[in-house]
């Protein structure tokens, strides 16, 4: 990888300028709407409504963000952020735990029905939340888990993809390692905890980033099972803020909420990326 990077740096002259120009243009195009949202979150309502839209931030940053965080439109954004956080972390951690354990079982144990279980897990790949949403709703309602964190988290936890990822990784771990641990006296769970888990660190970090964002961006499921505004998650909450009928939309607060909704995933990506890359650099396989 290092060599590729040097190769790119060493490319000189027109080619270098051109590629940079192209990349900068690409970034600007993608970044522009986000910039507009940010600008809109720092001005007053009338300034947004009358054209032309302002392109530079106003002076209402503190007021708008305070309003969003502590009162919001229906419910304070702080509450929704907390809900989203619980749900995203719950889903990411839950998915990782379950898939680590199922991959461990599938790779390291010979039990009757191993193949059947393997294919059953495989099958769930073809059944995303949207497909099974009605029966899942029935079940969750039956358990009385509407408007609860468990209702938000549990149905989204099973993950065939993550199970496969860990299965593939475990298959690359040499058998000798498991045997050495056995000779050292490690029982299976001890081997899992002391050896397999630390070795999977980088995979877990990468997966956590992906799954956190997956959980954070859930829209349909929370919309369906949370009727109590205090259980709203932020991604669905933004939509709930849009006015119905003739009400006036409070655009600065909505835009502030949107910007706030982006912050946690960005923080997770940036902070975990460091760990992720460090893991890749001193890869220990």
């Amino acid at each position, binding site marked *: 990888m290092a060599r590729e990077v040097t190769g790119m740096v060493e490319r000189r002259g027109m080619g270098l300028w051109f590629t940079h120009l192209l990349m900068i243009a690409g970034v600007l195009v993608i970044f522009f709407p986000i910039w507009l949202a940010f600008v809109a979150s720092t001005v007053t309502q009338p300034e947004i409504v009358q054209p032309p839209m302002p392109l530079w931030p106003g002076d209402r940053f503190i007021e708008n963000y305070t309003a969003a965080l502590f009162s919001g439109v229906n419910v304070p954004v702080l509450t929704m952020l907390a809900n989203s956080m619980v749900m995203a972390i719950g889903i990411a951690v839950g998915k990782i735990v379950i898939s680590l354990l199922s991959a461990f079982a599938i790779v390291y144990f010979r039990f009757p029905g191993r193949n059947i279980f393997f294919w059953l897990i495989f099958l769930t790949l073809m059944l995303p939340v949207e497909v099974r949403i009605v029966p899942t709703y029935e079940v969750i309602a039956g358990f009385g888990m509407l408007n609860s964190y468990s209702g938000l988290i549990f149905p989204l936890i099973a993950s065939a993809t993550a199970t496969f990822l860990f299965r593939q990784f475990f298959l690359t771990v040499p058998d000798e390692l498991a*045997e050495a641990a*056995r*000779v050292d*006296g490690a029982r299976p769970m001890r081997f899992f905890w002391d050896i397999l888990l630390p070795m999977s660190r980088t995979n877990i970090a990468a997966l956590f980033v992906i799954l956190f964002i997956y959980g954070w961006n859930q829209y349909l499921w929370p919309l369906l099972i949370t009727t109590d505004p205090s259980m709203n998650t932020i991604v669905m909450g933004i939509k709930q803020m849009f006015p119905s009928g003739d009400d006036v939309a409070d655009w600065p607060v909505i835009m502030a909420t949107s910007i706030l909704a982006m912050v946690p995933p960005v923080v997770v990506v940036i902070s975990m990326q460091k760990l992720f890359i460090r893991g890749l650099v001193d890869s*220990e396989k």
Partner: protein
Amino acid sequence: MATVDLDNIKKRFGNTEVIKGVSLSVQDGEFIVIVGPSGCGKSTLLRMVAGLETISEGELRINGQRANEREPMDRDIAMVFQNYALYPHMSVAQNMGYGLKIAGLPKPEIAAKVAEAAKLLQLTDLLDRKPKQLSGGQRQRVAMGRAIVRAPSVFLFDEPLSNLDAKLRVQMRLEIRELQSKLGITSLYVTHDQVEAMTMADRMIVMNAGVAEQIGTPLDVYERPETLFAAQFIGSPSMNVIEAEARDGMLHFADITLPAPSGITGPVMLGVRPEHLAPDPEGPIEMQVLLAEPLGANTLLHGRLTSGAGFTASLPGVHRVAPGEGALRLSIEAGNMHLFDAKTGRRIG
């Protein structure tokens, strides 16, 4: 300190029998080498002793007690794997102490034992390193260290030197042997390298296709191979084998006649080690030399007998053979001829 007894041990994978009944009594402190070509079942045999593979039939006794059903950790063994199997995320010290940690020893005691083993193996300066920061030879030593900290009754080695370069291999061979005799721990050592087997073993098992062809000291096997396979596998360059016919107390092959041991008639296989041949203008064996390999101390001459069979002689010193004119007469002492039954391959004289 322990004895290990294998009593007609067999292993089946599904319907294929991989180990076809091996029996062996290992004395306390003995160094046994299991040697054979790739795929003959050496590892499988060792892994059954380790408890990593179940024993299909027969009994394994460690210190006289049946161990077939015991978990590896309860057999009081330690194993050194071919690829070392070091835990990549643990330091050298943690790798060596892991077994003790699981056994629940207090930390200071683990540290003391690890330090002691590290000293023995000259690993003291490397204790904080990770395996990937070590050279092959150092990893090998750590794997050894992990085995010895637990002071097991039995050491098991599965081709531990096969990933090292030739020079290091010779050095580690000596180190392992030295360490083992210092500690006096009963050892089973698997290798496909007959030189390793010859140089390290107190006794060796020559295995072929799941069968122990011969069990004995290296010199026993070299001087009196019990089967054709053992005869050809042990010794380098490998033994010449010629189809011959025993008649009236004489051995006939091609136009050559040699005196035969008494009481043998019919088709036999005659085995002659290259190093037992001596140049002799009157010798009964005539060989057309096609290729000479000077090794310095001796010279390998490869060629053909008048019958067309391939033949190798190893003569001491330097022999310059001009290409084309290399007809050479050789003789052999009667005591250095090995006769094997042509059908069963078993030794008959």
